C-alpha cells in the first residue's frame, strides 16, 4: 500500500512540469486578446485600431480616464443593475421551469410527454431568428414592450430547452428512484421537486446551467435592444452599442472600458458557483 502511493506520486511529479508548461502556453493564447482589450480600455479613443499596430503601448499612453468618463457620464450602475436583475430572474425562472419539466420528463407518467420533449428539442435546433417576429408580436400583445419582464420571460424561455435537456439527463443518471416516493409527501408541488430533488441532488447540474444562464443577459443584444427602448431600462450590451456610430468615429476606449467592467459580475458569479459546481459534481457522482 505504502509502496504504491509513493510510486504514484513519483509519476505525478514527473509529469507535473510539462503540464504546467503546456497549460501556461495555452493560457497566454487565451488571455492575450483579453489583455489587449484591457489595455485598450486604458488608451485614448483613437489609439485602439491604429495601423500599423502597436504591440506594446508605452506607459504614458495609459490612463483611467475612460473609466472616469463611464462613471461620470454614463449611468453605468443603472445599466448594471438592470442587467443583474434580468440575469438573476432569468436564472431563477429557468431553474423553476427546467427542473420541474426535467423531472416530469425523466420520471413522471404523463401522456404525450415524449412528443413535448421532442418539440422542446426542435426549438433548440431551429435557427431562431425568424421566430423573433411572432415572439415580438407576442411580447407586444402581452404589453411587455419597454418592460424589463419582456426580456426576462423570453430569456428564461430560450434557455429552458438547454437547461431541461441537461437536468433531465442528470436526474435520470443520478437521482435514485426511491426519491420518487418522497416527492408526494408534501402533497407534490413544484416546491417538492425543489426540496427533494433539485436542491439536494441535482445541484451541480443546476449550478452548471445557472452559470451559462447568468451569462446570457450580459451577451444578448438583439432582443433586449428591441424590447427595452427606454434608456432607464437598458441592459449593458445595449448600452455599449450606444457608442457605436454609423458614420462618426466610434469611441473604442469607452466601449472597451465598459466591456471590461461588464465582465466583473460574470467572473464573480463564476467563481462563486464553480467551487460548488465541482464539489457538487463529485458528491453527486459518489451517491449515484
Amino acid at each position: 500500500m505504502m509502496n504504491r502511493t509513493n510510486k504514484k506520486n513519483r509519476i505525478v511529479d514527473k509529469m507535473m512540469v510539462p503540464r504546467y508548461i503546456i497549460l501556461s502556453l495555452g493560457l497566454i493564447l487565451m488571455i492575450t486578446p483579453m489583455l489587449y482589450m484591457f489595455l485598450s480600455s486604458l488608451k485614448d479613443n483613437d489609439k485602439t485600431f491604429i495601423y500599423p499596430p502597436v504591440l506594446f503601448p508605452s506607459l504614458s499612453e495609459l490612463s483611467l480616464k475612460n473609466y472616469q468618463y463611464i462613471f461620470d457620464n454614463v449611468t453605468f450602475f443603472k445599466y448594471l443593475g438592470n442587467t443583474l436583475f434580468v440575469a438573476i430572474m432569468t436564472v431563477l425562472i429557468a431553474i423553476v421551469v427546467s427542473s420541474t419539466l426535467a423531472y416530469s420528463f425523466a420520471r413522471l407518467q404523463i401522456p404525450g410527454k415524449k412528443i413535448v420533449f421532442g418539440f422542446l428539442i426542435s426549438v433548440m435546433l431551429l435557427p431562431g431568428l425568424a421566430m423573433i417576429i411572432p415572439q415580438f408580436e407576442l411580447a407586444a400583445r402581452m404589453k411587455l414592450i419597454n418592460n424589463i419582464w419582456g426580456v426576462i420571460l423570453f430569456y428564461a424561455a430560450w434557455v429552458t430547452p438547454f437547461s431541461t435537456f441537461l437536468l433531465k439527463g442528470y436526474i435520470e443518471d443520478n437521482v435514485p428512484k426511491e426519491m420518487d416516493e418522497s416527492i408526494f409527501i408534501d402533497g407534490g408541488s413544484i416546491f417538492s421537486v425543489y426540496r427533494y430533488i433539485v436542491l439536494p441532488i441535482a445541484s451541480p447540474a443546476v449550478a452548471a446551467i445557472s452559470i451559462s444562464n447568468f451569462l446570457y443577459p450580459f451577451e444578448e443584444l438583439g432582443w433586449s435592444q428591441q424590447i427595452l427602448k427606454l434608456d432607464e431600462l437598458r441592459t449593458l450590451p445595449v448600452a455599449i452599442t450606444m457608442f457605436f456610430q454609423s458614420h462618426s468615429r466610434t469611441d473604442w476606449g469607452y466601449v472597451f472600458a465598459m466591456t471590461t467592467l461588464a465582465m466583473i459580475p460574470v467572473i464573480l458569479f463564476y467563481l462563486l458557483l464553480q467551487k460548488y459546481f465541482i464539489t457538487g459534481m463529485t458528491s453527486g457522482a459518489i451517491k449515484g
Partner: protein
Amino acid sequence: MNAVMTKKKKKKIDWRNYVIFLPGFIFIFIFTFYPMAKMVVMSFFDWNIGFQQVSPFVGLKNYIDVLNDPIAKIAIVNTFAYAFVTVPLQMVIGLFVAVLINGIVKGSVGYRLGYYFPVISSWVVVALLFRYIFSNFGLLNYVLVDILHIANEPIGWLSSRWSSLFAAMLLGIWKGVGWNMVVFLAALQAVPKDQYEAADIDGANRVQKFFKITLPNIRGTLLFVIIMLSIGAFNTYTPITVLTGGNPAHQTEVVLTWMYFKTFNAYKMGYSAAFSVIVAIIIIVITVVMFSISKWRRGEE
C-alpha cells in the same frame, strides 16, 4: 380489450403529476411552442409584417425559393463547415486542457478562470479584436511581414471565402475552449478513482487509461457537449457579421446572417421562416442518422 387497457393505464396516472408538469409546460408553450408554430405557419405565406396588411397564402413557394437560392446554399455549406471544424476541435482541446488541469495540484483555480475568460467576454468585442488581428494591415500581418519577415507582403486573411471562414472558426474555437474545459472538468471529477487504481495495478499507461477508463466514463457528457456545441455552431452570427459581413459577394454568409438580411433588409419573412424549417430538418436528419449509427455500432460490439 385494447380500449379497456388504455383506460386503466390512464386512470393510474396520478393527478399530482400534472401539478408538477403543467406550470412549466404552459410557460414554454406560450413563449416558445406558440411562436415556433406560428413561424412554421409563416413559412407558407408571403408574410407581410406591415401595419394592417394581409398575407397571401403561397403554399410551398418560400421553400422553393430557398432551395433555388444559390446564396442560401452557400450559407448552409459554410454553416456546416463551421460546425464540423469548430465542434470537434473545441472538444478535443477542451478535454485536453481539462485533463491537464485535473492533474495539477496548485493553481488550478487560476487556470480555470484564465481559460474561462474568453467564454465570458463579449462576442462583439472579441470579434472586433479578431478583425483587427486578421485584417490586411492587422496585427498578424504586421508580425509576419514587419517583425519576423516571414512574408513579403500582407496576406489577405479575410479576403477569400475559406481563409476568412478559417479566421471565424479560430474565433469560435478560442472562445469555446473554456466552456468545454469547465464541463469536462466536472465530468472528470465524477470518474470513480478506484478504476484508475485498478488500472495502475494492471500496469496500464496514461494513454490506455484515458481511452479505457476516462472516455467511457464521460460518454454522456461527450454526447451532451456535441449537441450543445452543434446548436451553438448552427446559430453562429456575430463572428461572421463582424469579420466579413458576408463579403466578398455573400461568399462567407452563414445561415443566420443571410436570414437576417432576408428578414430585415428584404422584408421576406416567409422566406426566412421556410429557411429556418429547412435548416432544422437537415439538422434533425443528421442527428437521427448519427444516433442510429452509434447505436448500431454499440449493438455490434
